[in-house]
C-alpha cells in the first residue's frame, strides 16, 4: 500500500536533506512535534485540517533557513570575523598579482613579435582570468575557514614579533594576532610643497638630455674613414624630430619651474606634465620601434646586426620607456590629488 506523502512529510524530507547526519534525526523529531502542535492549535481555533497544515508550514518558512536556525549556522559566505582579513588579502593580491602577470604577458608577446592588438587583447584577457581566479579561490578559502573554523597556529619560537609580522597574522584573527595599534598606518606626508631639490633635479636632467642630443652629433668616440664623427641618432632627424625633442625638453623645464614658483602641485601642472610626456613618448617609441631613431651608419660602424638580441633589447627598452613615462603621468596626478586634499583639509 502506498500513500501520497503529506505536506508535513515533504517538509521534513526537505529539512533532513539540509541537515548533517549527526543532527538529522534529533532535529526532524523536534520539528515534527512542533508542526503537529502548531496544526492542532490552528484546528482548535477553527481551521480545516488541510488549511491548518498549510498555514503551520508556511509559518515555519524555508526548510533550509529553518535548518540553519536549528544548527546555529549563519547564512552568509564570510562572517564579520573574517571579513576584514579576506578583504585585506584580496586587495593586496589584486594590486600586486594583476599588474605583474599582465606586464609579463605583454613583454612575452612583444618579444614573440605579436601585433599590438593581440598584445592588448592578451593583457585584458589575462587580467580578467587571473582576477576572477584570485577572487574565487581567496573567497572559497575564507568561506571554508569561516564555516569549519581553524585552530589558531601555535606561536613559533624565535620569530621576531615585528609589527609587520603581526600585520600578517591579522589573517588569523582567532590566534594571537588580534589587531593592535602597532598596525596603524603612518600617514604619508602630503608633499604639497615643491622642494627646490626636485625643481633643480628636473632642470639638471633636462639639460643633460639636451646636451646628450647635441654631443652625440659630434660623437668623439666613433669616426668614419674620413675622420668625421658618426652620430648615434639618425642625422636626418634634425630636420624635425630632434628640434621638436629639444623644444619639449625646454617645455618640461618651464613647467617644472612654473610649478616651483607657484609653490605647489595642481591639476593644471599634472595635465601639462601628462601632455609633455605623451608628446615625447608616443613619437619617440614610434621612431624607436620602426628603427628610425638610430643612425644606420652607427649600427654598421659598431658592427651589430639587427639580430634577435637587438630586437629584444629594443622591446624591453621601449616598454621601460613607456612605463617610466606612464608612471610620471600618474605620479603627477597623485601629487596633485594629495595636494588638493591637504590644502582642502586646511581650508
Amino acid at each position, binding site marked *: 500500500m502506498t500513500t501520497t506523502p503529506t505536506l508535513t512529510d515533504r517538509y521534513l524530507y526537505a529539512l533532513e536533506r539540509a541537515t548533517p547526519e549527526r543532527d538529522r534525526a534529533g*532535529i526532524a*523529531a*523536534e*520539528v515534527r*512535534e*512542533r508542526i*503537529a*502542535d*502548531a496544526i492542532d*492549535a490552528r484546528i482548535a481555533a477553527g481551521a480545516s485540517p488541510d488549511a491548518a497544515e498549510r498555514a503551520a508550514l508556511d*509559518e*515555519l*518558512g524555508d526548510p533550509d533557513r*529553518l535548518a540553519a*536556525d*536549528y544548527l*546555529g549556522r549563519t547564512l552568509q559566505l564570510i562572517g564579520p570575523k573574517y571579513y576584514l582579513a579576506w578583504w585585506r588579502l584580496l586587495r593586496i593580491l589584486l594590486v600586486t598579482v594583476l599588474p605583474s602577470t599582465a606586464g609579463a604577458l605583454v613583454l612575452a608577446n612583444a618579444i614573440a613579435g605579436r601585433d599590438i592588438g593581440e598584445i592588448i587583447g592578451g593583457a585584458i584577457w589575462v587580467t580578467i582570468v587571473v582576477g576572477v581566479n584570485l577572487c574565487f579561490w581567496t573567497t572559497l578559502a575564507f568561506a571554508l575557514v569561516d564555516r569549519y573554523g581553524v585552530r589558531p597556529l601555535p606561536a613559533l619560537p624565535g620569530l621576531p614579533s615585528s609589527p609587520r609580522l603581526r600585520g600578517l597574522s591579522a589573517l588569523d584573527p582567532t590566534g594571537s594576532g588580534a589587531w593592535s595599534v602597532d598596525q596603524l598606518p603612518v600617514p604619508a606626508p602630503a608633499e604639497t610643497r615643491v622642494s627646490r631639490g626636485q625643481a633643480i633635479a628636473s632642470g639638471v636632467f633636462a639639460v643633460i638630455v639636451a646636451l646628450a642630443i647635441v654631443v652625440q652629433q659630434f660623437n668623439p668616440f666613433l669616426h668614419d674613414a674620413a675622420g668625421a664623427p658618426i652620430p648615434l641618432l639618425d642625422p636626418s632627424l634634425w630636420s624635425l624630430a630632434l628640434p621638436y625633442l629639444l623644444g619639449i625638453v625646454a617645455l618640461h623645464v618651464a613647467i617644472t619651474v612654473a610649478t616651483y614658483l607657484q609653490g605647489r602641485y595642481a591639476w593644471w601642472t599634472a595635465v601639462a606634465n601628462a601632455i609633455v610626456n605623451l608628446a615625447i613618448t608616443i613619437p619617440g617609441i614610434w621612431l624607436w620601434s620602426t628603427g628610425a631613431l638610430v643612425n644606420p651608419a652607427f649600427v654598421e660602424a659598431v658592427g651589430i646586426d639587427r639580430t634577435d638580441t637587438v630586437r629584444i633589447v629594443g622591446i624591453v627598452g621601449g616598454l621601460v620607456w613607456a612605463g617610466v613615462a606612464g608612471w610620471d603621468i600618474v605620479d603627477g596626478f597623485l601629487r596633485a590629488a594629495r595636494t588638493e586634499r591637504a590644502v582642502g583639509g586646511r581650508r
Partner: protein
Amino acid sequence: MGDETTEGHLQELRRGTVVLACLVRLRTPGYGYALLEALGRLGVKTDANTLYPLLRRLEQQGYLTSEWNTEESRPRKFYRTSPAGESLAATLADEWERLSDSLRHLQDES
C-alpha cells in the same frame, strides 16, 4: 521615526530576556508549544522561530536537560532547567535587577 525602527529596538531589548524566562519557567518540565503559549500569556513576547532553536541551543550548552515523553498520543520533548541553568538564571536575574536600578537612577537624575 517609523514604527519599524521602534519595533527593532524593542526586539533588541527583549532578546536576552527570553533566555531568562525559559530558564525560570522550565524549573517545572515543559515542551516547546506549551512554553510558547505560557510565555505569550505572561507577556514575554517571543515567536516560535526564535524559541524552538533557542531551546535546542540551551540544551547543547548544558543549561537545559531533555527527555522524550512517549506516554501521550504523540511523543514530545520535555525540557527542564539543569543546575547549570539555575545558576545562569540567577546570574541573569541579578544583572537584570542591576540594570533596572541603574536605568531608574539615570532617569531620576535627568
